C-alpha cells in the first residue's frame, strides 16, 4: 500500500439496545490530511467520534491507529498515543487560569504528575511553552484570566490550544465552529488550517463553508453508514448526498432530511438566486 493511513476502521458497528447507531463504518484517514465527517443529525458522527476515542466500546469491528489495534484500549491510553479529541460542548477547566489550562495538558508529558510531595513550582518551566501556545491562538493577553470569564469563541480557541499542547498526531474536532458568530468561524477555521501543519485532523462539521475551505477529504454518513466519500466537489455533486444531506433532490423537491447546514445552504441558494 502506498498511501499512509493514520487511522483505519474496519466494519465498525455500535448498537444501542437493538438500535444501530453506527453501521459497518470503514474509514481510512490519510496522514497529514484534514478529513471531515458530515451527515444529517443523528447520522452517527458523534458516536463514531466516541468510538474512536474509546468513550464508547464498539459492538463489532476494529480500529487501527498507526497500524496498531486500539479497539479495546482505555480512553486515557488512546490519548497518550497521540489521538486527542476536542468536545462538542466546550471543554475547559473553568476555574483554572487560561495558562493553567494549557499547562495541565503540557504536564502530561512530564513524569511528575503523581508527585504529590513536590511544589507546583516545578511546573514553572512549562510556562514558556504554554505562553507560546496561547500566542498561537491569540490568547496570550488572557493568560492570567480565570477561564470562566472568557467569551465563547475564546474558550473554543483555548480548547484548541490545550489540545495542541499534547502535540497530537491525530486531532479530532467535534463541530469546532458550532455556536459561533461568523467572525469567530473564520478565525477558528484559519486556526485549524494553521495548526494542521504536520498533523492529521478529523473533524465533524455542519458548516459546509468551513468544510469546503478546509477539508481534503469528506466522508458522508447517513443512518450510521457511509454514504459516500471523496473531496468536496465530488461529494457535493453526488445526488445521494444532495438528497440525504444537502436536501436538494434531483427534482428540486424540498427535503428536510438535512440538518442545520443544509438549510443554511438553501437560504444562501435562495437569497442569492
Amino acid at each position, binding site marked *: 500500500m502506498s498511501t499512509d493511513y493514520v487511522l483505519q476502521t474496519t466494519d465498525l458497528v455500535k448498537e444501542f439496545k437493538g438500535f444501530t447507531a453506527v453501521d459497518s463504518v470503514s474509514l481510512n484517514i490519510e496522514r497529514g490530511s484534514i478529513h471531515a465527517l458530515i451527515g444529517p443529525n443523528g447520522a452517527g458522527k458523534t458516536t463514531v467520534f466516541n468510538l474512536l476515542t474509546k468513550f464508547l466500546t464498539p459492538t463489532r469491528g476494529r480500529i487501527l491507529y498507526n497500524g496498531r489495534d486500539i479497539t479495546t484500549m482505555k480512553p486515557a491510553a488512546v490519548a497518550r498515543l497521540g489521538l486527542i479529541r476536542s468536545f462538542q460542548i466546550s471543554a475547559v477547566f473553568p476555574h483554572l487560569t487560561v495558562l493553567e489550562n494549557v499547562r495541565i495538558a503540557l504536564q502530561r508529558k512530564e513524569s511528575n504528575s503523581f508527585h504529590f510531595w513536590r511544589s507546583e513550582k516545578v511546573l514553572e518551566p512549562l510556562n514558556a511553552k504554554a505562553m507560546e501556545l496561547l500566542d498561537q491562538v491569540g490568547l496570550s493577553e488572557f493568560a492570567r484570566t480565570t477561564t470562566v470569564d472568557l467569551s465563547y469563541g475564546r474558550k473554543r480557541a483555548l480548547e484548541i490550544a490545550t489540545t495542541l499542547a499534547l502535540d497530537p498526531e491525530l486531532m479530532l474536532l467535534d463541530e469546532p465552529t458550532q455556536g459561533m458568530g461568523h467572525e469567530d468561524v473564520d478565525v477558528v477555521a484559519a486556526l485549524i488550517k494553521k495548526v494542521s501543519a504536520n498533523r492529521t485532523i478529523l473533524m465533524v462539521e455542519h458548516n459546509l*463553508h468551513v468544510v469546503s475551505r478546509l477539508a481534503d477529504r469528506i466522508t458522508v454518513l447517513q443512518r450510521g453508514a457511509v454514504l459516500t466519500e471523496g473531496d468536496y466537489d465530488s461529494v457535493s455533486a453526488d445526488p445521494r448526498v444532495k438528497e440525504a444531506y444537502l436536501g436538494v433532490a434531483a427534482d428540486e423537491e*424540498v427535503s428536510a432530511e438535512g440538518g442545520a447546514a443544509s*438549510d443554511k445552504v438553501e437560504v444562501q441558494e*435562495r437569497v442569492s438566486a
Partner: protein
Amino acid sequence: MTTYGEKIRISDLHAFYGESHILHGIDLNVKQGELVTLLGRNGAGRSTTLRAIMNMVGKRSGTININGRQTIGMASHRIAHLGIGYCPEERAIFSSLNVEENLMLPPAVRSDGMSVEEIYSMFPNLYERRYSQGTRLSGGEQQMLALARILRSGANILLLDEITEGLAPVIVKKLGEVLQKLKERGLTILLVEQNFRFAAPIADRHYVMEHGHIVEEVRADELEARADMLHTYLGV
C-alpha cells in the same frame, strides 16, 4: 397596553442561564391566528426565547404578556394553563412511558383539544405503536408524538422548536399542512425553525435573532425584497 387579539406580547426580555446572560432585551408580539417564526443561526437564542416564555430558564426579567396576563412571576405550570403548548427542541419523549401514556400525559389546559381519535387518525403510525415504549419510536415518530401530545391538551398558543428536524420529507410536508390547518382553526403559533423552506410559505412574519437580540422583523410579503439582509444574518 394589549390590543385585542394579541396573544403574546414580550418586551425588554432578558434571560440568563446561571451567570451567562443570553437574551438581551427581546421585544416581540404575536396576534391570534398568526404564525410567526424566529430565525437565526445556532445559539442565537431562539430556543431560549421559547424557554423564557415558559419560565424554564435560570432567571428572566422584562414583561411577557400571554392573553394580556403578565406572566413574568408565574410558575411554568400556571403559564401552561393559560393555553400554551410547548414542544421542546429535544422532543422530551419519556422513555419510562409508553406511547399512549406519553400522549395522555399533558393535562387538558383548555376544553377544546383534539380528541385521541382525531390525533390517531392524523398520525396513524402512533396508533399502531401506542403500546410501545416512547423512546423506541423512530425519530420521526417521536417528533409526531411530541407535537400530538400538545394538540390533545387543547392549547391554542403553540411554541414549536425545530419540529421538522430529522423528519422525512413526506412528514415535513404533512406537518406543513397540519400547521396550516391549525392556523385556520385560529391557533397562534410561534415557530423556531432552521428549515427556512418549510417555514417561509406558512409564516406571516419572521423575526431574525442574533446574539440574544432581535435584529430584524420581516413580513412574509417582504421576503424577496429583503433577501440580502437575510443572507447577511443567516448565510455563511
